[in-house]
């Protein structure tokens, strides 16, 4: 038990949840959160104890299933990337009204600098919005400890707890020491039959409970459980360092920070320690990954007196992730860069793999639409195939969010665009494209939907997709005319056939779905290797 495990922070979260006695993990894959669920899926304990670990269709279904488990008195972990929180926002916001019986830890994995995302929204806002405690680790060990504690906290308070991590921590490994394993909860239901029935009459009562619980949450933060205050001799500055930003501060002061530091790992913010810094320090520097949430809360709208500095004041960049060099500059420390990057070094952007079926799909699509010029627009979606925007394909004109390809194509067709084409992957389609397609079927919108099916969620590493093998049936069930559901095999030898089919369906003035289907080459190789 005392030997260290070498774990990614994602894996530390997963190990802590297993040790804390979860009965299930619910998630949809998304960078940088995917490895949490994968770790549980490959754990012997999860198999032995039959802990739920299959992927959900999307983040909303994941959170709702987790709430079902928490309703039944058992502990559930639910994980997603930051933009997935938008999808799960409905159950999340209402979960703090109903509360929980079994502990529920909601992991939001943010991606500042957009390494693999379309925005860098800060999930701490959601925690504050839902009025639940937010835990923000600075190390792999804290990721473990906070997840473990998160379940206790959730059961003690009777509300879900959010754990917020960011890419840099999620995908960094370090030694982690485990704690004692707890048994799973037994099936148990709320003593209050009104608790989970959020009719207005009940919800008003539950909301008062949530408001009343704010005091308890505040008291826990004030007790500095995961918030630590360290005094400093130099009072010209005080520092509020949230989550992983604390590491970048200490990296620059290896012999100890001369300024008083409040390390924030648990929200709501501890008021006493912040008041102490404001009263005693010339300036309060706020270091936080993501948006200037804490800085704005402390400074207030007008920041009168200008004592509070950070991303909002311009001391640190407003966007992108922090690093030791950015934090060094904020404290006027010199960095020691000796060599420049030589001019011969070119950017090397990611690209679709050689041999990938999406390539053949884009080649056919580009050939099919060439003659229509500006009369055609192609609406992309979220996945490997978003790389079809880049050369040599340059095939996409939009990419907004999961499922938006179909609904944006419909809206543009409503606006009068003659040829509206949507390109969406199989997993993204079942995540959020099915209701979009129903809207299009309802109005018989003249759109052409290409579901580029590689039979996995490929971008995140080849996870199972709940819709595999069911796409034609789903489309037919939603009401697409069977003769306008066209399945193809995206290979060079089928190029002419594919071009022909795409042209035919573009010229059909109703909803058509074209399904080029060929397994992801990476997923196929992995399958072969694991069989050997």
């Amino acid at each position, binding site marked *: 038990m005392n030997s260290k495990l*070498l774990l990614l922070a994602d894996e530390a979260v997963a190990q802590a949840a297993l040790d804390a006695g979860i009965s299930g993990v619910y998630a949809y894959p998304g960078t940088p959160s*995917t490895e949490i669920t994968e770790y549980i899926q490959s754990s012997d304990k999860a198999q032995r104890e039959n802990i739920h670990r299959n992927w959900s269709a999307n983040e909303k279904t994941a959170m709702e299933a987790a709430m079902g488990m928490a309703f039944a008195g058992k502990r559930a972990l639910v994980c997603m990337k930051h933009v997935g929180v938008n999808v799960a926002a409905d159950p999340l916001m209402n979960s703090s009204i109903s509360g929980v019986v079994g502990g529920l830890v909601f992991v939001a994995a943010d991606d500042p600098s957009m390494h693999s995302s379309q925005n860098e929204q800060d999930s701490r806002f959601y925690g504050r919005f839902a009025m639940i405690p937010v835990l923000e680790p600075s190390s792999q060990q804290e990721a473990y400890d906070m997840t473990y504690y998160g379940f206790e906290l959730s059961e003690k308070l009777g509300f879900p707890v959010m754990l917020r991590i960011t890419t840099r921590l999620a*995908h960094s490994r370090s030694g982690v020491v485990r704690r004692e394993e707890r048994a799973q909860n037994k099936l148990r239901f709320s003593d209050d039959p009104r608790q989970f029935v959020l009719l207005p009459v009940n919800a008003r009562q539950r909301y008062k409970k949530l408001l009343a619980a704010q005091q308890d949450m505040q008291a826990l933060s004030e007790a500095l459980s995961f918030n630590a205050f360290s005094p400093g001799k130099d009072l010209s500055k005080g520092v509020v360092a949230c989550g*992983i930003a604390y590491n970048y501060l200490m990296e620059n002061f290896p012999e100890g920070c001369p300024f008083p530091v409040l390390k924030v790992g648990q929200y709501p913010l501890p008021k006493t320690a912040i008041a102490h810094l404001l009263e005693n320090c010339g300036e309060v520097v706020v270091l936080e990954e993501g948006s200037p949430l804490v800085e704005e809360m402390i400074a207030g709208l007008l920041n009168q007196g200008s004592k509070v500095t950070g991303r909002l004041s311009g001391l640190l960049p407003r966007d992108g992730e922090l690093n030791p060099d950015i934090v060094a500059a904020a404290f006027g420390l010199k*960095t020691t860069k000796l060599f420049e990057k030589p001019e011969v070094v070119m950017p*090397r952007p990611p690209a679709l793999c050689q041999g990938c079926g999406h390539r053949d799909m884009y080649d056919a699509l580009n050939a099919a639409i060439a003659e229509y010029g500006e009369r055609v627009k192609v609406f992309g979606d979220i996945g490997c195939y978003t790389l079809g925007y880049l050369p040599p394909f340059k095939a996409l004109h939009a990419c907004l969010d999961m499922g938006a390809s179909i609904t944006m194509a419909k809206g543009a067709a409503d606006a009068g665009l003659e040829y509206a084409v949507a390109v969406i992957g199989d997993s993204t389609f079942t995540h959020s494209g099915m209701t979009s397609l129903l809207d299009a079927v309802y109005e018989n919108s003249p759109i052409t939907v290409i579901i580029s099916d590689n039979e996995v969620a490929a971008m995140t590493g080849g996870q199972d997709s709940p819709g595999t093998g069911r796409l034609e049936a789903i489309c037919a069930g939603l009401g697409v005319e069977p003769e306008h559901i066209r399945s193809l095999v995206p290979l060079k030898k089928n190029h002419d056939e594919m071009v022909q089919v795409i042209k035919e369906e573009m010229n059909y003035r109703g909803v058509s779905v074209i399904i080029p289907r060929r397994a992801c080459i990476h997923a196929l190789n992995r399958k072969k290797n694991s069989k050997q």
Partner: protein
Amino acid sequence: MKIDIILAGVGGQGILSIAAVIGEAALSQGLFMKQSEVHGMSQRGGDVQSNLRISDRVIYSDLIPAGKADLVLALEPMEALRYLPYLSAEGWLVSNSVPYVNIPNYPEEDKLKESIARFQRKVILDVDSIAREAGSVRAANMVLLGAACPFLRLDYSGLQQAVRRIFERKGEAVVELNLNALSMGKALAEQEFKP
């Protein structure tokens, strides 16, 4: 004792296996370590790097500050140059010499060579050929790790054990191939370069 290493390459080349071996070895010697990696979109043939930090003291940042790395270890020469700004004055560059060309504007060979030649403290090896000699080009990453041994200040036997642990589920033949690749890389680096 502190070693800060930047591992660099192209998605799919296997830099994470190098990181895993060094990390295992460091942890088994009771040292602190942090290793940040790149997952997700960039793995699709893009440039990838991993920051690996080993120390006998607590390590704070998962990222190595500019100008502080002791070693840039690269499976691709242009990717090696990308991280020069991270090298310290005493830092070494250990890199494969074989370009991985998957972009249209990849630099011309002589310009790339010229840029590398300008940098003094370096070990440049054709690790692909050495790996082929060892048994398979797929062990190129272990040849490179072997070539980095003189700069790593870790027990060689610890590295061998880590190779064994990491590859053992793939069978004894794969373990032997990788151990062989490791020792060939080490021998070449020791023969030609004295740090």
